[in-house]
Every structure is written in C-alpha cells, then in structure tokens.
C-alpha cells in the first residue's frame, strides 16, 4: 500500500531523511519510531504531499503523490501532530467541511458522520463548539475525521501525545477496530514504546535520517537481545539525548502552548 524507495530530503546542508526504503502492506499497522529530530515527521510530510522529496520514490496505492497529488490525497487521511480542527465550529461542522472537501457523496455523508461520531463517543457533543472540548476529545474527533472519507491509509503523527492512559487506550482500541472492519492501513509515529509494541504489526526505527532496523516487535527484541521494545529502541538508537535546533514551527508551537495553556 505504501512503498518508499531511496527517499531523501535535505534542508540546505542538513540531511533530514537519508536514503530510506520501506514497504507497508495493505491493512497493516505500521509504527515508525525514532528519537526527536530523527526524520519521522519529515517523512510523513513527504508521504502526505506537504513536502517535496529531494530524491527517491514514493508510491501510495500505486500513485506517486508528487505527480498525482489529488488522487493520492483522496486515498489517505491524516491526523497531524499539531491540532487542525476549527475551534469556532461545532464537531459536526468540522466533520461536514471535511466531507465536502473530500467529495463524500451527499447521500452517505450524514450517515457516515453519525457512525464515526458514535464510534468515537462524540455524538452527544456534536453541536458543541470544538474549543470547549478536552484534549482527548479533540484527538478523537480528528481521528474520526481522518476516517470520514474511507481512506485506504491513515497517517497518525504522535496522536496520543499529552493524553492520559485512559484516552490513549480507548483511542487505540477504536483505531484497531476500524483497521479491522474497514481494512485501513495505519501508519503511525509515537514516543510510547508500549503502544507500538501492542498495536503495530511492523515497526521501523529511524535515527539521524536512516532506518536502523525494521521488522516485527518480536524480531527487534531478538535482534538486540532485549526483553522490551523500549530496550530494543535504546539499544538501536543509543542513550544520548538529542538536542535539536528549534525551528520557527517549534517557536510558534511554544507560543501556542503559552496562549492556550495546553496542547
């Protein structure tokens, strides 16, 4: 479903993604793990047409997103690391705009929105403005929205960041059940190794822009002789801390936190 060959992205003299290749099969749950600044988000941006690769090839369902941009966009849904809901609109209105933008036929629109809002336990709050929602509810709404146009692939970029264990648990249960019932391929990144261990069938670990290991959680543990995925992750990426330079987006993110007081 996703095929990446020799993908490269450089920013000036800095190589963010350095010649990576991987494949994700249809219906698979694939976790893309790595320390901060390893190139996870850059890779997702290239996969989702937000950033042009410097080199290499991407295929989403057989399409090159750089060439067939709109066809490729129709095939995936994405939940960004930063929120992308409109707080001044209601939950239902947020879903409705998405349905129009993704050409969901009018006949099935209302039905599909109701089904997803129910699945993510937001139906009773559909008429409330999103800015009154908790962090967990906003995330659930974003994920429900990602499923709205029945995509073939769903990208989740750190969807559980800042959520309590209850919300995280519930969120993954819902994602997994939709993965099974609709056969959606899920491509996720997370810093919570226990989540990746539990939910992902395939894992790739990226560090300094290069993929250092890939395979099932079982395989990664065996390869490194660790008894947990976290142990395997640390063995593969080292224990040193990563001090990234703050980008302009990071600075804005900091301001966003200052103003809103939460994520």
């Amino acid at each position, binding site marked *: 479903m996703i095929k990446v060959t020799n993908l490269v992205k450089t920013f000036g003299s800095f190589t963010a993604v350095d010649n990576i290749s991987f494949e994700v099969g249809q219906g698979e749950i694939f976790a893309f793990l790595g320390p901060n600044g390893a190139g996870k988000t850059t890779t997702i941006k290239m996969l989702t047409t937000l950033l042009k690769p410097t080199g290499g090839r991407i295929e989403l369902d057989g399409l090159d997103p750089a060439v067939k941009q709109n066809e490729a966009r129709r095939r995936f849904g994405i939940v960004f690391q930063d929120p992308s809901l409109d707080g*001044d609109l209601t939950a239902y209105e947020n879903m409705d*705009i998405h349905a129009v*933008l993704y050409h969901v036929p009018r006949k099935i629109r209302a039905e599909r929105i109701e089904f997803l809002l129910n699945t993510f336990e937001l139906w009773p709050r559909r008429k409330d403005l999103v800015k009154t929602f908790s962090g967990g509810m906003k995330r659930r709404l974003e994920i429900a929205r990602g499923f709205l146009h029945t995509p073939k692939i769903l990208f989740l970029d750190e969807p559980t960041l800042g959520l309590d264990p209850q919300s995280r648990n519930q969120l993954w249960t819902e994602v997994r059940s939709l993965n099974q019932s609709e056969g959606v391929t899920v491509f996720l990144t997370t810093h919570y190794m226990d989540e990746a261990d539990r939910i992902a069938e395939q894992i790739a670990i990226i560090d300094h822009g290069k993929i250092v290991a890939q395979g099932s959680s079982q395989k990664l543990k065996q390869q490194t002789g660790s008894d947990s995925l976290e142990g395997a992750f640390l063995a593969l990426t080292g224990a040193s801390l990563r001090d990234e330079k703050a980008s302009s987006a990071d600075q*804005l*993110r900091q301001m966003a936190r200052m103003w809103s007081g939460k994520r």
Partner: protein
Amino acid sequence: MSAIYILWLRELKRYFRSRAQIVASLGQPLLYLLALGFGLEPVFRKAGNGSYMQFVAPGVIGMTVLFSSIFSGIGLLWDRQFGFLKETLVAPVPRIRIMIGKALGGATVAILQGFLVIIACFLVGFRPRSFAAIPVAILFMVLIAIVFASLGIAIGSKLENMQGFQLIMNFLVMPIFFLSGALFPLTNLPKTLAAITTLDPLSYGIDGLRAALIGASQFGVATDLLVLGCLSVVLMAIGSYFFSKIQL
C-alpha cells in the same frame, strides 16, 4: 465550487460567532472617527476645506476594510501550522479553490465590518451626498477587500514567524494606511510624499470611496476602478501562486 462555498461559509460563521471580536475591532475606527473627526474639524474648516468629519469618514471606512481583509490573509501564518488550514492543504481540492474560498470569506467579513463603520459614521453625523452613491461605495469596498485579502494571503503564505508579522505590520500595513490619503487631502503635498501616495493601492480605494460618498476625487473614478481592478487580478494571481507553493 462546493469547496469554495464551504470555506467561504466557514469564515462567515466564525465572524458571526465572535461577537466580542466584532465589537473590539470597531474600537480603532471609532477612535479615529471620533477623536480626529471632531478634533481636527475646526482647523480643517478654518483652512477652507469644509467639514473634516465628512472628509475623514470614507478614509475610516477604507481603513476598516483594509485592516480586516489583510489580517484575514496574514492569519495564514498561524492557521497553516496550528489551525484548520492545515487540514485543507492535504485535501483533494486544488489549492487555488481553497485560496479563493479563503480570500472571498476574508473579503466578505471585511465588507461587513465596513458596513458597521458606515452605520457608525452615520450616527456621528456623516451624510453621503446621495443614497444612490452607496452602491458605488460598496463596489470600492469590495475591490479594496479583494486586493488586500489577496495581498495578505501572499504574505501569510511566505511568513515564517511572529517577528515577521511585526515587521509587516509596522513597515507595510501601517504605511499603506497612513500614506493613502485616508486622513489628509492629497492636494498640494510635497513632491516625494505625493509620489509615494500614488504608489499606494489604498489611495485609489479611498479616492473612489470619497468620490462616491462626498463627490471629491483626486484621480477620477475611472482611474480608481482601473487601478484596483487590475491590482485585484494581479494580487489574486500572486496570492494563489504563493499559496499553492506552501510546504510545511
């Protein structure tokens, strides 16, 4: 079409739901209208130029439309990283339609805001020369709104951070306003200043509004229409070009 419509509708819904913001954004135009309108009235009259309130009202209306429309575009800086806009950037809709929906929405809101200021002008004693002139004034408001919403989008697509926003505010938006003749007549100006004012797009908008509302014009309505019409096409094109090139 449905994408343009729904994005336009979104801007309107947000506008009508933020009543506090509507009131807040009337503060500045009212201050100019009341403080300058009444404050400079005696001097202006003594200089033989008639009523300053009559003169400045079209300027304040133009200012309102300028600020409201240009900020709706510059807001992209925030919206593309932390807002809803990011969602529209990965949608299977050509970016130009998203840009048009956004620009028309921002322009419509700016025009509504302009209407409120027209009413405020009325309440403090401003009288247009005839009510038949109102549609022409609206046409100029629409042109000002489209020109500056597009300019705002072009800037908002390029800006990287909040410091850039301050720069744009102090070195572009405020000069556009102060050098447009919104507050003073463009006659008998020093040569350099006169030259600069003819380069300011808002000068033609204010001039058009003034021509319609009080029957005084520097450049002539035909020139005003021509300049703003051409600029709106050019800036719309530049805005959508930069917008289509946004990478995150």
